[in-house]
Each structure stands twice: as C-alpha cells, then as structure tokens.
C-alpha cells in the first residue's frame, strides 16, 4: 500500500492516465518489479545478440562445465554447459523468450475469454449471469495441472497446444473480476445516459464500460501472466510442456534434476531466474493494483 491515495480518488481522478502515472512512480514495489521485468524482457528480445553460442549447439567434449565462479570454469562458457555441452547462458537467454512469450500469449488469450464472459455476465445479469457463473464455478473446481497434463497428453505437446490449453484454463480470475467491475459500472448514471441517447448495447459495453475496466484488467493480466509462466515451467518440468530441444526454464530444471547432488547450479540458475521473473511480475501487479484499482485488493 502506498498510503498516498485518498479514498475519494477512486475512478474519477483529475486526468485518468496522469494520476495513475504519477502515483506509480512513487510506488517502490511497482518500480522495482517493472525494472526487473524490463531487464529480463530486453535480455529475451536481444537473446540473439547477447548469447555467446547457438543454444542448440552440442559439444560433447565440454559437458557439464561449471559456471565462472567455480573451479574448472571455461571463459567460453561463462555460466557453464549442460549435460549435452550446450552453452547455459545462451539457453537461459532463449529460455526467457519462451517463458515471457508463453506468459504474454496466455495472459492475452485467457484475458479475451475471461473478459468476454465476465462482462457479459455482469452486464446482462439474470439467467445469463447464472449460467456463466456456473461455468466459472465448474472451471474453479478443475485441478489446473491435472487437466492441463491430460489435455496435453491427449492432443500432443506443442507450443500451440500448450498456449491454448493454458488459455482455456486460466481465464477464471478475469471473469470474476470483470463481472464484479461491470456490475458496478452498469448501474452508474453514465450508462443510463448512454441508453437514453439510444446507444446500442454492444456500443455501451465496448465504448462506455470497457474503458473504465482497463485499470483492473491490466492488474489481473499481470498476475495471470505470472501464473501462466509458473504453469508452463511446471508442465515443461513434467515433460508435457515445451519439448526438447527448445530451451525452457522448466525443461532445463527437469534436465538438470539428475545432477542435483553434484552439479546443483544446473537447477539453481533456471530456478532462480524463474523465481525472479515471477516475483517481479507479481510485485508489479500488486503495485499496479495499489495504484490503479485499490478497490480490487483481495
């Protein structure tokens, strides 16, 4: 909590964007999270420039080279190599692309599903709300990892299936938050005014209500992205997510698990990066929530 926000500064600040921006700059968690996320994003985008080696190039003569701060390190491989002699730094950099890419894609797709369902339920209410709420409750009753494992095993693992399966499983929080926020908005007089002017229902939803949900949508999207990255790592670790030889942090942890006793860095480095990335996104999301949509703090 920044504590700088008076309760009266709800949704109608002076200029909607400017107020959020000014408050964001003063929020330490938000700034730190954003900085780390930006750093990792730049690293991921610039992977081809930064990586010293081809992440797929095997070099069986140089298997399990330790990282630079340990005995037996080689300058050609600053973070060592894996069990196939592939450069670990390069694989970690390319792995960031996979994590961020999948996280973003899932956050966007599940956002589309969840927002559509939540806004529909919240705006129309009644029977439609009952049906959609039942679907949400049913979805919440499904164990995500088990269903994802079953679905991926059934359809066959590929990046597309992985993204699709996760998007179909992670939309519930969007739906719940958007439903409540829409209910709040639809009873406001500006929605009635738009109806009295003769606006069509789709236009009211898209042009009048949705812009007022943007704050909360961004907050949920951030938190969902962290969730998606963790799920991708978990599925990849279990062998049903990203498939070898594509570098994914979860897969790298899985590949390193035989070496956990004597070469723990193989697990430690992707694991630490995963924690850092998810922590950064969650801190950013929490900060955004404090600043942009304090009412949704749960």
């Amino acid at each position, binding site marked *: 909590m920044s504590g700088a926000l008076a309760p009266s500064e709800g*949704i*109608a*600040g*002076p*200029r*909607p964007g400017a107020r959020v921006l000014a408050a964001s700059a003063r929020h330490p968690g938000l700034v730190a999270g954003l900085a780390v996320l930006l750093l990792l994003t730049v690293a991921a985008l610039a992977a081809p420039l930064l990586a010293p080696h081809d992440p797929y190039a095997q070099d069986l003569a140089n298997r399990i080279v330790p990282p630079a701060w340990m005995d037996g390190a080689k300058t050609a491989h600053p973070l060592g190599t894996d069990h196939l002699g592939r450069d670990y730094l390069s694989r970690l950099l390319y792995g960031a692309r996979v994590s961020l890419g999948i996280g973003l894609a899932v956050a966007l797709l599940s956002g589309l599903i969840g927002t559509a369902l939540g806004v529909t339920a919240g705006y129309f209410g009644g029977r439609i709300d009952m049906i959609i709420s039942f679907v949400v409750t049913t979805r919440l009753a499904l164990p995500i990892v088990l269903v994802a494992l079953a679905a991926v095993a059934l359809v066959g693992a590929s990046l597309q299936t992985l993204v699709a399966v996760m998007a179909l499983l992670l939309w519930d929080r969007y739906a719940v938050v958007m439903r409540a926020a829409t209910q709040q908005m639809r009873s*406001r*007089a*500006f929605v*009635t*005014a*738009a*109806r*009295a*002017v*003769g*606006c069509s229902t789709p*236009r009211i939803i898209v042009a*009048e209500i949705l*812009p*007022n949900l*943007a704050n909360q949508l961004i907050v949920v999207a951030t938190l969902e992205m962290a969730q998606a990255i963790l799920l991708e790592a978990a599925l990849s670790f279990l062998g049903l997510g990203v498939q070898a030889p594509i570098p994914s942090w979860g897969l790298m942890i899985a590949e390193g698990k035989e070496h956990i006793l004597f070469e723990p860095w193989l697990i430690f480095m992707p694991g630490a990066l995963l924690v850092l990335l998810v922590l950064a996104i969650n801190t950013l999301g929490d900060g955004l929530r404090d600043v942009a949509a304090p009412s949704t703090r749960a």
Partner: protein
Amino acid sequence: MTAAPLLELRDVRCDFSVERGFLRARRTLRAVDGVSLALRPGETLGIVGESGCGKSTVANLMLGLIRPSAGAVLLSGTPIDRMDRRAVAQRVQPVFQDPYASLNPRKTVRAIVGLPLSVHGAAADPGDAARRVSAMLDMVGLPRHLADSYPGELSGGQRQRVAIARALVLRPNIVVCDEPTSALDVSVQAQILNLLLDLRRELGLAMVFISHNLAVVEHVAQRVAVMYLGRVVEEATAAALFRAARHPYTQALLLSVLTPEPGRGIPDARLGAGFPDPLAPPPGCSFHPRCPLAEARCAATAPALAGRGEGEGTVACHVAGALNSAMP
C-alpha cells in the same frame, strides 16, 4: 386542456421483482401504481415526493428506459415501447441528479457531448459535429477550452452543464430532469436552475422536473404532481398547490420545507411514523399510518383521485375530498 399532451402516462403501473435472499421467494415491488400524468408543449411539470416514492421510476418510464407493467406511456400519442429507441431519444432526453456519476470519467467533454450526434449520425461530417458541440458548450455557458477536459477536472456545476449540453445537443422537445440540482452546492444550484429556465425559454422545451425540494419546484414548475408510495396523491397548478394544499401529505411536505434562516431549526413535519416498507404497503390509503387526519375508512379503502374543488387539479384523499364537498 387545449394542446394535446407531448408525453402522457396513462394509468401506468410498474412492478419490480425483488430478490430478498437465497431460497426466499421473490416479491413484487410496485414502484408505480396507476399513475396518469400529462405534459403539454412548453409546460414544466414538477413531480415531488420523498425518496422511494417512485419519482425516478416515473422518469425512467418517460425516457422509455423501462417498460410499464400495465398502462401506457405515450409520446405524442404513440406508445413509447412501440417506437424505435433512437426515435424516442431524439425527443426525450434526461438530466440526472449526480453529475459525478452521469459522465463517463474516461471521456472528454467533447466526446460526451458529441456522443448523441455520433449515435444518431446527426452530424454531416466531423467538422459539423465539432461546430455543434462548440455551439452547445456556448449555450450552456461552458468555456470552449474545457472541451478537451475530463469530467474529473471539472467542478460539480461545470459537470452538470456538460450533462445538460449532452441532453440538448439532439434538440429534443422534452427534457426529464431527475433531481438536477440536489447533488450540487447550494451556491451552484441557482446557476444551474437559471440555466435550465433560460434554455427552456430559448428552445421552447417542455420539462419534467423531479425533485424533493418544494421550493425549487414552486420556482420552476407550472403544474405539480405529489407522489406518495407509487401513486399521485395530489396534482394541481403550482400556484393553487402552494397556496392551498389539500392532501395532508402535501401539507406536511410544505411544512417541512427548510429555510436558510438561521435559528429556526429543522421543522417538524408531523409525519411521526417512518416511510412504510414499499414491499408491504399499508392497506387502504397508503398514507393513513402517518396521516394526522386518518379515519377508519382510510385503512379500509384507497381513495381515488377526485376534483380538488378549487380550480383545476385532483386529490386522492377521503378527508380532503369531504372537506371539498363541504365547501360551497
């Protein structure tokens, strides 16, 4: 009764189904019960009553935002629910109570006032739309440089001016004002009221002015309807009503008008018991539990609207009716 009514409510009833909790039966709330009202061209009709008496439901009925459960809402003789939404919008527009809620916080003043034009495709081109928005801002007394502001940057009075500009930009002939000044500072109320009166004269508007503030209604309206628990209990010209209220409820309301004079305290309206539960209205005359003049028959049968005696108008009261017939 010379000119045909622009807007007419004919024995309108409006029920809402109210959920009272999990596994408890839904109940019907009769928000409006047998209301007949007429608004003639150029006329201002005041509707007064306490919170919960159905004033705002009447406003929503007049705007075609809700359908009557029985009876008809007629716009120049045509039932409003058989008309195209946008055709209704071109003729009747609302001004709401709270200008903090009635303007979309994410839109600029220009977009808010221009919305009706774009919904109706009323502007020939973007330049025409911009001109009409600017002209409208001039008309409601807003400086043009505020066109790119967001509602959050405006004062309450300025926001209500924006709401009025939005209501008038399509040039409707009826404006339904639902408590248009009660959310504003006292110092601003008069400005907004005078603006509405000026616009009414300039544009020849017919107005429905809903308020709990009798002083304001007396100032604005030519005819006044007093509502209690979903029914019209008295209706008359403003002059006749404020000179000699017939219904005991109207009399109590008049007594309760607050004056800005210091030291007078809050007047006693003699309305002892609280407002009844609208889900379980009292039998007979719904006002009888609070009425100082109540008799046995008031609890048994509901009084119908009858002539007021003096001048035009109607009143629904057994006792006041008897008083009338006793008078020559």
